[in-house]
């Protein structure tokens, strides 16, 4: 089975080739393009699972120490910069999830983009090219054995997220009803926002990498994590901290941007403007997982030089994670857009993962990442199916003449227009319920086990320290967050699937095609049983599989947290209460009423609905001043100073070229040559007599040059 490891480079390469093939050759044939994309990612999944199996069979020496394929790439001075691929237990765990979830999303996309229907997306092939590249980026990131390849993949994903979030930012044809002027504007703004916001994090990450490289001369994980290297990094002081902590915090900055942690979380909800499969891709398997993956991969840098319990970099991760987990969840309470609720839920769940990592527990954070990827992909695809059904219902209603085709108030995403869909869309409803129960954390669904492990970890830390320190607050935020998560999910399923239809569209909604519901069911299975991967009563298999990957650094240790019935019981009670409460409150909500939370919470609800006004704050403090400054700079550049200067320089350059040409022709060929010829009269006369034409001049230049150089030499 070790043979399979040699195929690792293929894992990111196959989707990349699919991207190239679609862009270069098959983009005119829509069906073929999407089949190539799906075939590519499916093949990649097969290879990945082969690698996972090989890792399982290979035992500890691969799972802990890792398999490597270094490729000497670019010599830098006397050393060679290696890039390459590596697989260990952690990578294998990611390889189990990422390509598979991507495959499900790809298959789903074929239905969602209406292949073969009259309303098929006009940029259908391009969509599949982009998502293939997206998947290639994520897979490259996972199998990279060094930070450079990781960063390149990271940026590839950044580019793809920009392209895909803005996918509906222009319309070519009139038959694209789903794109109106407002949609175009929103998509443009959202794409830009995602790109720029994550860029803030990327710059931090890049400076971290540059710093790291300048101190160590390498970006390969194995070499960075050597104990002596970490000690060396820890002994250098920078800004009053050990350099290693500064690097870790800068890298965490990158993760905050990519994984939408507070305060750079603002781009993720807006990323909903892309097609729904993209949301699933970004929220589950790829983009946001990358930030968590980065922190987990670089965990030794966060700990180095300190005890796990009081490493400052790690504490920052925990604090940011806890804040994000709690506040993200509260915003989710007050949103009406079905996908926006899920977006804030993602932000909140990513906060949980960061909490787990911030407590120093690699496995807890990654376990939640893995289970979350499955059930969040499920929820997003399910919401896409609901939206799809609503859109069709809206058309159908229009066709029946019961509503006008363009009643402006209607949005297929608005939960308050839905209702009663569990009868109309049963094959969407049941998987969606599985996803909901997993997210809320009901035994035995996947989310229960993973969330519980994080909370148990925090609880145990609290007990060990015995004071109301950071672990306590993390635990409290997590538990309260679990309650709120259950509340907003209860509200959501009640609004979407229960009650009476609140709009004509919901009345006429119908089930989505099999290519969409099929992946939902597959993912639902994983939402149900995914938790077994690390269930305590099975002996925490995942823990043994990947817990040891950072052992070699001698700073990160893996220890299992025993199952804590008090913690698990409390969170289950909380989850059940919230879910049933939310469901009960909203089950009989009718269109047009003031909703219950708004009645009870009043101004707080308004605050939540406006997402704590963070966007407005950024608008006021950052965007407006920057735009003003840009205007001034533009004026400075274009009108007053620089442009005229540039024109002047251009003119001078052209003049210099003219003069040089003139010089070559006139001065060198005739002026200088003939002038010198007069000086060396006899010599020139002789040349003139023996030869004709311009070659004479050329040769004279040779002679003069040689003589001049000799003269110079003899004179000096």
């Amino acid at each position, binding site marked *: 089975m070790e043979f399979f490891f040699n195929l690792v480079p293929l894992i990111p390469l196959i989707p990349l080739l699919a991207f190239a093939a679609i862009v270069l050759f098959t983009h005119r044939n829509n069906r073929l393009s999407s089949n190539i994309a799906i075939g590519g990612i499916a093949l990649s999944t097969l290879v990945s699972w082969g690698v996972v199996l090989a890792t399982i069979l290979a035992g500890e020496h691969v799972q802990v120490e890792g398999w490597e394929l270094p490729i000497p790439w670019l010599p830098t001075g006397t050393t060679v910069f290696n890039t390459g691929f590596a697989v260990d237990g952690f990578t294998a765990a990611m390889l189990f999830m990422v390509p598979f979830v991507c495959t499900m999303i790809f298959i789903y996309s074929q239905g969602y983009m209406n292949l073969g229907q009259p309303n098929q997306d006009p940029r259908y092939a391009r969509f599949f090219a982009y998502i293939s590249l997206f998947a290639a980026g994520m897979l490259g990131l996972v199998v990279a054995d060094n930070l450079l390849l990781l960063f390149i993949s990271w940026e590839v994903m950044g580019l793809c997220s920009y392209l895909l979030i803005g996918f509906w930012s222009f319309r070519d044809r009139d038959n694209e009803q789903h794109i109106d002027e407002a949609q175009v504007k929103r998509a443009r703004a959202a794409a830009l926002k995602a790109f720029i916001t994550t860029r803030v994090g990327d710059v931090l990450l890049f400076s971290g990498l540059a710093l790291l490289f300048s101190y160590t001369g390498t970006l390969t994980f194995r070499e960075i994590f050597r104990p002596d290297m970490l000690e060396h990094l820890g002994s250098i002081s920078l800004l009053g901290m050990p350099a290693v902590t500064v690097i870790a915090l800068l890298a965490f900055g990158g993760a905050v941007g990519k994984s939408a942690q507070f305060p750079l979380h603002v781009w993720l909800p807006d990323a909903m403007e892309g097609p729904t499969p993209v949301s699933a891709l970004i929220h589950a398997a790829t983009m946001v997982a990358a930030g968590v993956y980065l922190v987990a991969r670089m965990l030794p840098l966060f700990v180095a030089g300190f005890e796990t319990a009081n490493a400052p970099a790690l504490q920052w991760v925990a604090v940011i994670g806890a804040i994000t987990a709690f506040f993200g969840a509260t915003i989710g309470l007050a949103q009406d857009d079905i996908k926006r609720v899920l977006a804030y839920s993602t932000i909140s769940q990513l906060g949980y993962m960061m909490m787990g990592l911030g407590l120093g527990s690699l496995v807890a954070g990654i376990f939640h990442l893995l289970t979350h990827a499955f059930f969040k992909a499920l929820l997003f695809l399910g919401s896409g199916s609901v939206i799809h059904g609503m859109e069709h219902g809206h058309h159908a209603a229009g066709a029946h003449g019961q509503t006008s085709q363009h009643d402006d108030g209607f949005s297929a995403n608005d939960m308050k227009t839905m209702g009663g869909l569990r009868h109309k869309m049963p094959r969407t409803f049941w998987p969606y319920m599985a996803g909901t129960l997993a997210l809320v954390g009901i035994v035995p669904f996947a989310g229960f086990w993973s969330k519980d492990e994080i909370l148990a970890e925090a609880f145990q830390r609290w007990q060990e320290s015995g004071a109301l320190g950071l672990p306590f607050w993390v635990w409290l935020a997590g538990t309260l967050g679990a309650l709120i998560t259950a509340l907003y999910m209860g509200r959501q399923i009640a609004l979407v699937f229960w009650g009476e239809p609140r709009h004509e569209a919901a009345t006429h909604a119908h089930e989505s095609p099999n290519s969409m519901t099929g992946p939902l069911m597959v993912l639902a299975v994983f939402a149900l049983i995914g938790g077994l991967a690390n269930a305590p009563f099975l002996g925490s298999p995942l823990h043994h599989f990947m817990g040891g990957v950072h052992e070699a650094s001698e700073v990160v240790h893996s220890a299992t947290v025993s199952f804590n019935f008090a913690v698990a019981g409390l969170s289950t009670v909380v989850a059940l209460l919230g879910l049933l409460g939310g469901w009960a409150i909203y089950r009989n909500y009718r269109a047009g009423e003031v909703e219950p939370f708004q009645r009870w919470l009043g101004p707080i609800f308004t605050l939540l609905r406006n997402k704590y006004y963070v966007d407005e704050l950024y608008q006021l403090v950052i965007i407006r001043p920057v735009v003003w400054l840009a205007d001034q700079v533009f004026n400075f550049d274009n009108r007053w100073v620089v442009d005229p200067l540039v024109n002047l320089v251009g003119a001078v350059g052209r003049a210099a*070229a003219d003069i040089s*040409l003139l010089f*070559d022709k006139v001065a060198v060929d005739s002026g200088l040559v003939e002038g010198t010829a007069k000086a060396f009269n006899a010599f020139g006369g002789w040349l003139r007599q023996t030869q004709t034409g*311009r070659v004479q001049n050329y*040769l004279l230049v*040779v*002679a003069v040059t040689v003589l001049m*150089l*000799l003269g110079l030499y003899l004179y000096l």
Partner: protein
Amino acid sequence: MTLNQLLTLLLPEIVLTVAAFVVLGLDLIWRGDEVRGRWLPWVAFLGVLLTLVATIAVWPMAGVGGRPLALTVGQGFGGDAIPMMALDGLALFFKLFTVLVLLIVTLSAGEYVQTHTPFRGEFYALMLLAGLSIMLASAATNLVMIYLAIEFLSITSYVLTGYLRDDPRSTEAAIKYFIYGAGASAVMLYGFSLLYGATGTTDLAAIATALTAGSTTVRWLVFPATIMALAGLGFKIALVPFHQWSPDAYEGAPTPVTAFLSVGPKAAGFAVLMRLLLTALPGFQVDWVGVLAGVAIITMSLGNLVALRQTNVKRLLAYSSIAQAGYMLIGLAALAPLSESWTTGLNGLLLYLFAYLFTNLGAFAIVIAVENRTGSAQISDFAGLIRRAPFLAVAMFIFLLSLIGIPPTGGFLGKLFVFGAAIQQRMILLAVVGIINSVVSVYYYYAIIREMFFGQAGDAESIPVTPSLKLVVGVNAVMVLAIALYAEPFIRLATESVQMLAAKF
């Protein structure tokens, strides 16, 4: 060394010679223009392929420090066997280089030769012989051998330049080239004679020994000798101020010959210059580094500035290749014999040459394709190429990126190394001038890109491309990218090729 051993080590040269004569012979024997026109290029191509095989076969035989080949067969002449050539890393590098040039040029010449001249056999034979002379020149370690090889190269080049004898421009170019070359070669020979007079030997290594051991009174002759040799080799490389023949010759010569001239003789010139300076005159580095640096600066600057105003692509590429040679010369000037990484500059020079080989020949193959269709090679003929021949336009884009030196292309890697060497050597001025010149060059390379992608084609008809030209363009484009993306093997090749020169320090 027995005759057998000698013949084995000379195998690539022998195969190439035989191939040339086979082409000549077949040209006489075969009746029927049709058959000859179609098959002679492939016979030549096959001959070059066999040469490649022979080169690879002798590759392991070159020991560390090189294996000298003394051309005194038998004992009849008396005296010592004087080494004439060497089979070392550098020689092997240039053998490989020459084979690649010949492969590409014979493939891309096909249709052009077919339509432009009735004398096809001699064309390919001369091309192969010119290649042979490059191999000989780059392996020569003796002043006499160097001179003979360079002359051999010159004469074949003159004939090839004037090959379209009904075309007055071609004839004029050949005459100019010939007269200029004769002058330059005389100057070089005079320089060689000074070296011989000062040391009493023509063997490069022996010259070095004699100069360090011998009397100091003759040492003042070395600098004049260097300058004169530089005039001859600078003519081959087309360094300013020995460049003036090149735009005329490039423009007048048949385009495949221009492609060959812009790469082959330059490589030969650089190979000989490296050997001469590093093997025979290492002790006089202080003298020649300044001259080389000065020549590099004016070569880059003049080449680029004059290229700005060109409207003919062949002439533009001529001036651009002058400038490119200037960049390469930086690698030789920025040599640091005493430091640990002293080969960076030479590495850069060889890498640059290697990338330049694919870049320039690829660009010329595209010029040939366009010229075959439109009959001329003005920049305006490239207008709208992206619609008329998208493949050519994209490939040309890659080649132009490489000429500018933008990653991920081989040209970037070459520039990175030579500029890096200059900075390492604290020759900041050299690096700065090089970088400024790279920026200036963007202007005229971009003019072609702009025409190709945004220009309005007067003629919207698509341009058909023969399969062999397509192959050449495709392979070259891939190689240009491969050199940058997977640089390690190429860098190793370059490093190993200069190892032998290291032994001489």
